[in-house]
């Protein structure tokens, strides 16, 4: 066996990120920063109607505008006319009808972005407006107009575990609603497509999954995959919103048609129409328990509004359902989850991916059950907390650490924040100076959640990594290459750390992610450090085997590397998979669907001005088991950032959709948390180690987003005594006005 050496900047330390210097100096090239000689600008014409038949399209006036180089419609799509991550139901450009307000109808290339926008506005589209389907429950009525020919039910996931006729002495029921949240990544959808001499195209793009894009883009362009080359441009945040294709095909079509590079950059307003959102949800729950608080059964019905196209709705509803009762041990479970088509904006992946909506409902229920029993909310949760060896509602046995009760106890036992100092900036309303403390009530609430890590239900979830080790200037240096998308989470740092730890080299370069190497899978589902990290580790192990082959004995990396590499570089490419998962039974939902479970718990403290309905979150404490913190500083960054997004859903963020139209597509009207809205955070990181995962790590990104929302709402309930069954909580919910 090869001996490792502790190398500076290896795993468990927190080196500075390799792209950091360029990011602080403004030189890092995000996808909207790209430029090419003779470059044109693309623009998109979108439907103003949520449901309409397209009677005619007249391009004459648009084409007449000086500076316009191309105006394209569905007829110009060279290959497959539809795309989609799981189900290819979404037209590249509308074909004869539109199914949501904001659906792309035509695209333009011009020599200036304003010219392109004006040309798009000159395209004459005659619509026959139809009544849209905008209610997710009504959409399930067989009499409802179908949004697609296949009907409005995208997927029904039933879960039946244990006896189905259980009765209980203590029963609480509740109906809950979750609004439509936006990922609100700051870097808008953008990219640069450059036509190539071989008839293909090079696309520089901000995405979460280069090969997911490649498969769809190549098909829609009617090109073989080798003629469509994708490289990752700088990604200004993602959070699920870049898992689907947005402007990728459009930019390539315009570049191929004009023979010139084409850049497309969405405005913030267009971004709200340009990507999928978090599913709005309606959830009805019934919890039955005995007098000691032990859960006997949970019954639930979850309806997710998938909007006009499928995106990842089938997987989202499976998550919401299979994780739908939370991290609790329950002998009898009956859950039905539905994802439905409507003419609302399409919904798909956002951080937490179905687990968020369910967690708000089941944690609200746990608080109501605690109140019904006269029990402390943490104590009730601890009595029912999942432990290793317990079974999930799918029948899957939980392996490895599952410290649910421990996480709750940890956040409970942290000291509570001190009372306010009287600085008016610390009251709800802050610098608006709306109170001196009269009418302000404090409340504390708890939440705990569960998330699956990695892709589920039998998906072939793998990543590919290449590690090359060679002498540069007489010193060993490594290059690591994958197609994994760095979206801000710090994967580039972690990959270099793994190489340093495994190979004992200090100099590690992370090559730009592109499609010249095999797929890394998506930067989603909290999976990339696990799966691509696992692939990098495996590639390093292959390099070490080659070192041993060359030396013919156990190698000492500290002393042998220079000699070994004198015989030439070593390069190994490895495809790596985690343990397989399996489909769930379509009638009972039983099956080992998930790879790994991750847990976090939150305690929120809030001040509420009960007269004005204003909330200030005073402090949030998080405890999370991350298995092993490969980069402790980034782990804390993920926890703080994820928690803040849960705060947004609790009290601020909702895309308001009225009659199928988004009413607030701007950062003026869709509010994400500012530094004044996000409180100081206490973060307690546990490293319990999952024996099945590389280095024992557990996916980090999503759990903190899941339970912060119910913890904050529980704290507001504690401050106000109000039931609060919908998020985001708005001032009028608190004042009754």
């Amino acid at each position: 066996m090869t001996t490792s050496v502790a190398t500076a900047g290896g795993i468990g330390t927190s080196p500075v990120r390799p792209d950091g210097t360029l990011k602080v100096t403004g030189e890092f090239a995000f996808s909207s920063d790209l430029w090419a000689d003779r470059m044109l600008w693309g623009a998109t014409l979108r439907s103003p109607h949520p449901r309409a038949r397209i009677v005619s399209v007249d391009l004459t006036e648009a084409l007449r505008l000086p500076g316009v180089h191309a105006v394209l419609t569905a007829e110009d799509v060279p290959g497959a006319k539809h795309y989609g991550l799981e189900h290819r139901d979404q037209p590249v450009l509308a074909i004869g009808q539109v199914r949501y307000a904001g659906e792309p109808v035509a695209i333009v290339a011009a020599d200036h972005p304003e010219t392109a926008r004006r040309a798009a506005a000159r395209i004459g589209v005659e619509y026959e407006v139809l009544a849209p389907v905008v209610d997710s429950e009504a959409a399930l009525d067989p009499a409802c107009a179908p949004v697609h020919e296949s009907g409005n039910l995208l997927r029904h996931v039933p879960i039946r575990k244990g006896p189905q006729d259980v009765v209980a002495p203590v029963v609480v029921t509740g109906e809950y609603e979750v609004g439509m949240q936006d990922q609100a990544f700051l870097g808008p959808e953008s990219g640069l497509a450059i036509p190539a001499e071989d008839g293909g195209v090079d696309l520089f793009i901000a995405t979460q999954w280069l090969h997911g894009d490649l498969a769809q883009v190549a098909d829609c362009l009617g090109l073989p995959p080798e003629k469509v080359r994708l490289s990752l441009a700088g990604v200004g945040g993602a959070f699920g919103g870049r898992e689907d294709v947005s402007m990728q095909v459009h930019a390539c079509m315009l570049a191929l048609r004009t023979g010139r590079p084409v850049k497309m950059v969405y405005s913030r307003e267009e971004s709200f129409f340009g990507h999928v959102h978090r599913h709005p949800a309606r959830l009805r729950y019934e919890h039955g328990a005995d007098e000691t608080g032990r859960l006997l059964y949970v019954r639930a019905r979850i309806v997710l509004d998938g909007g006009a196209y499928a995106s990842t709705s089938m997987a989202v509803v499976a998550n919401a359902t299979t994780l739908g009762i939370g991290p609790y041990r329950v002998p009898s479970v009956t859950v039905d989850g539905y994802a439905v088509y409507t003419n609302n904006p399409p919904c798909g992946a956002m951080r937490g991916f179905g687990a968020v909506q369910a967690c708000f409902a089941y944690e609200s229920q746990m608080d109501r059950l605690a109140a019904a029993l006269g029990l402390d909310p943490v104590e009730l949760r601890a009595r029912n907390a999942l432990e290793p060896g317990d079974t999930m509602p799918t029948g899957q046995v939980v392996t490895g650490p599952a410290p649910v009760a421990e996480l709750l106890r940890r956040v409970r036992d942290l000291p509570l924040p001190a009372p306010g100092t009287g600085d008016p900036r610390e009251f709800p309303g802050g610098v608006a100076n709306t109170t001196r403390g009269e009418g302000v009530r404090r409340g504390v609430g708890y939440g705990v959640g569960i998330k699956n890590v990695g892709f589920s239900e039998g998906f072939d979830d793998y990543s590919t990594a290449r590690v090359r080790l060679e002498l540069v200037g007489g010193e060993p240096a490594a290059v690591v290459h994958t197609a994994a998308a760095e979206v801000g989470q710090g994967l580039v740092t972690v990959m270099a750390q793994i190489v340093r730890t495994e190979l004992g080299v200090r100099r590690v370069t992370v090559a730009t992610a592109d499609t010249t190497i095999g797929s890394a899978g998506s930067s989603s589902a909290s999976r990339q450090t696990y799966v691509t990290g696992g692939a990098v580790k495996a590639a390093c192990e292959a390099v070490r085997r080659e070192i041993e082959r060359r030396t013919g004995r156990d190698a000492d990396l500290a002393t042998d590397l220079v000699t070994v590499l004198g015989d030439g570089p070593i390069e190994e490419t490895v495809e790596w998979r985690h343990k397989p998962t399996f489909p769930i039974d379509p009638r009972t939902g039983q099956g080992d669907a998930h790879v790994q479970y991750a847990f976090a718990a939150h305690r929120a403290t809030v001040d509420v001005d009960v007269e004005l309905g204003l909330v200030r979150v005073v402090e949030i404490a998080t405890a999370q088991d991350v298995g092993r913190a490969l980069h402790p500083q980034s782990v804390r960054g993920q926890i703080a950032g994820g928690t803040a997004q849960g705060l947004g859903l609790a009290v601020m963020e909702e895309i308001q959709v009225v009659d199928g139209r988004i009413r607030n597509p701007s950062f003026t009207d869709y509010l994400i948390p500012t530094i004044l809205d996000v409180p100081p955070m206490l973060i307690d990181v546990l490293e319990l180690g999952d024996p099945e995962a590389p280095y024992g790590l557990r996916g980090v990104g999503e759990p903190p987003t899941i339970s912060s929302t119910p913890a904050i709402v529980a704290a507001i309930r504690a401050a106000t005594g109000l039931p609060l069954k919908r998020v985001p909580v708005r001032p009028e919910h608190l004042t009754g006005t």
Partner: protein
Amino acid sequence: MRLNLSVNGEERTADDVWEGESLLYVLRERLGLPGAKNACEQGECGSCTVYLDGTPVCACLVAAGQAAGRAVRTVEGLAGPGALHPIQQAFLTAGAVQCGFCTPGLIVAVHDLLERNPEPSDPDIREALAGNLCRCTGYEHIVAAVKLAARR
């Protein structure tokens, strides 16, 4: 139109500027300075913050013509060539950079804060940076970076 202005101490000229263009567009697309970012282009996010004659502004809200003959300083001009300003170094050390799209605007805003108030309290920091949205970090490490930069 032709636009003459000073950028990071250098006299610069942009030709064929359309009157409707913003200072942000001219910096990014005509002068090769993409540091100021285009997250909202309506003055809500702070990602395009630059100094205009010493005052921090949202470059997206300044018409290009309004900058004629004036001095602009962007994130690219805060430190000397090849060097990092202590605020930039603090952002790296504190882990305040994730996706980095808000970072340039925040660094200019922090630069302005520390010029005015070298030892800001927590509420001072939060009030001063309330116009700069960050979607990744939850602001924890940004507050830490400001404190670290202030100590230096």
